[in-house]
């Protein structure tokens, strides 16, 4: 399994998954690559815009971890619900959020998903079945468990999914969510995105034993997956989803990966050994998926150019959009009783297996 920055074992050896490609058409496999390329291109653009002073506050990305969110989300059905975390832009892309809306969000423009109320990846587009994350980690695990609880109570065949980092596992809400999901055997998928660092803190200072080992002691399986392989992420999530919707309960998936950029744009990550970064650069998830598709004869370069053009256009559109009107700053504190009920709506579910 992957090398770790520490002496904490990176999860149990998990039985190899069946060949995921059995579940994926070439179109799916291109879709996975496309979403990863989009994620990277949008985040690179946003980083540039940040350097130009066009993205206020701080900027965080998921460079090198694209497979984790893209692969997992590819396995989610339209009626499923997600709480997307800060390294997981790919999930939004797969669910159908448009690049211009994302860049508008980063720049605090009126057309951003939160209309400028919240920044960077702190957003969830209601029309894609996603709840916007809060900063407090990992609070969203409980929200995901609660959505799953509602599905189970109503006898619906749907599931909820959320991500969280290695550092986030140290907080109480991790435990309350794991325990709740175990006791009620909820249709929820927890993805531990083990990128080996929490800000500057290496995993050996977060836990003595890999948290994926804990799943069993909550009454459900924990599996470790190569988080830099989008198809492996897809397959592990697909299986977890099947368990979930057939009443088999929760799954904890550890996506073993590496944070390849600083915690945020301001962080030079001096604290990470260079050799470790170098080693993981060889495992880039986009390179891996590109190689696969080249073997299948897909014109990856054309795809890259298409994505680049899409992001160029999106940036142009986003930059042309206005900032929010300050007169709206105190609107929408409370939802009026007489207004229509607002609930999360279904998102895109591009996997061919859903027959859409």
């Amino acid at each position, binding site marked *: 399994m992957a090398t770790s920055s520490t002496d904490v074992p990176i999860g149990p050896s998990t039985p190899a998954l069946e060949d995921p490609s059995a579940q994926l058409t070439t179109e799916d496999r291109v879709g996975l690559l496309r979403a990863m390329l989009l994620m990277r291109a949008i985040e690179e653009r946003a980083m540039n815009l940040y350097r130009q002073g066009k993205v206020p506050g701080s900027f965080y990305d998921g460079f090198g971890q694209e497979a984790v969110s893209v692969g997992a989300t590819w396995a989610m059905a339209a009626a499923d*619900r997600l709480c997307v975390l800060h390294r997981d832009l790919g999930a939004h892309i797969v669910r159908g959020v448009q690049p211009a809306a994302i860049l508008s969000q980063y720049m605090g423009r009126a057309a951003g*998903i*939160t*209309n400028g*109320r*919240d920044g960077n990846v*702190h*957003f*969830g587009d*209601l029309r894609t079945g996603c*709840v*916007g994350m*809060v*900063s*407090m980690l990992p*609070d969203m*695990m*409980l*929200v*995901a*468990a*609660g*959505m*799953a*609880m*509602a*599905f189970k*109570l109503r006898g619906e065949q749907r599931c*909820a999914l959320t991500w969280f980092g290695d550092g986030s596992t140290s907080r*109480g*809400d991790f435990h*309350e*969510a794991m*325990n*709740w999901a175990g*006791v009620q055997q909820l249709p929820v998928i927890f993805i531990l995105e083990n990128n080996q660092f929490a800000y500057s803190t290496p995993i050996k200072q977060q836990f003595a034993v890999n948290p994926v080992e804990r799943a069993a002691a909550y009454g459900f399986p924990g599996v470790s997956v190569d988080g830099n392989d989008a198809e492996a992420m897809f397959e592990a999530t697909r299986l977890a989803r099947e368990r979930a919707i057939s009443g088999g309960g929760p799954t904890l998936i550890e996506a073993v990966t590496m944070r390849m950029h600083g915690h945020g744009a301001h962080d030079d990550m001096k604290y990470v050994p260079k050799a470790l970064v170098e080693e993981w650069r060889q495992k880039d998830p986009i390179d891996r998926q590109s190689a696969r598709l080249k073997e299948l004869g897909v014109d990856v370069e054309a795809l890259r150019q298409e994505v680049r053009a899409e992001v160029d256009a999106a940036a142009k559109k986003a930059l042309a959009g206005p900032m929010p009107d300050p007169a709206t700053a105190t609107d*929408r*504190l*409370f*939802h*009026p*009783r007489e*207004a229509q*009920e*607002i*609930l*999360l709506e279904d998102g895109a579910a591009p996997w061919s297996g859903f027959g859409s």
Partner: protein
Amino acid sequence: MSEMTYLRAISDGLRTEMRNDERVLLMGEDIGVYGGAFKVTDGFIEEFGADRVMDTPLAESGIVGTAVGAAVVGLRPVCEMQFADFVSCGFDQIVNVAGKMLYRQGLPVNITVRLPSGGGFSGGPFHSQNPEAWFMHSPGLKVVAPSTAEDAKGMIIASIRDPNPVIYMEHKNLYRRVKGEVPEGSYETPFKARVAREGDDLVVIAYGAMVHTALEATADLDGASIMVLDLRSLVPLDEQAILGAVQRCSKVVVVDEANYTCAAGAQVAALIAERAFEDLDGPVLRVASPDVPIPFSPPLEAAVLPSVERVREACRQLLEY
């Protein structure tokens, strides 16, 4: 109409709304089989089943956080904290997840959190707190605090129907002490203040248990005509009713069972000092618990909680002003 206790009125409201609306679901520790530490949900599990009257793990953050999740996919969870004091353990989920979701994301969070609060029965530092001001200071939460049986029912129903997170303060010391006529069936009490007694010389502004302390203290105070304003809702705060009462009476005593500093009463007094200064004919006096944990032993607790006597003194002082 039938007479019932404040406690039974809450039960009645919950039951009514659960019958009306299948989306309503109760969550909490020991609320099902046991019927709740105070028996508010006694008999509910028999009528509605364990899925809708859910005995949860001992985990307040879990209760609130999963309720938020259930709410955004269409349920209407009502969470019980076994005592209001334990809300500190679910604090983050309330203020940061539930309270900010609509403003940030446009997604309303229809949950109600019931907080059995207050002192007066030797509950000690961990079973007597009145934490409403923490939530008043956290944007995006409504905070209500009925004082009568009728309002207790009408406001629990209104809280459940309100699409926003509502912190419902129920004062333990009213549970069995306060009784009143309660309408049958379904009705809502608006989140507005109520004149508990008319009067012209002075107004005592209070909410929850302190409404009764205020009424008792001023029932017969040297013949003065004393208004008692029951706020009922703390967020939104019925500023119009407060300012109107000050305009009419010119003298104000604000009573609060919570600790003095930054309490609801501080907000009310500050509001008056800012917006009704010209109507004032004397200082805005406050009666509240001093800034200490609520002690256990009866003589100590009695020394700390606002008493009829202390309210009376404040009124007298102001009437003589």
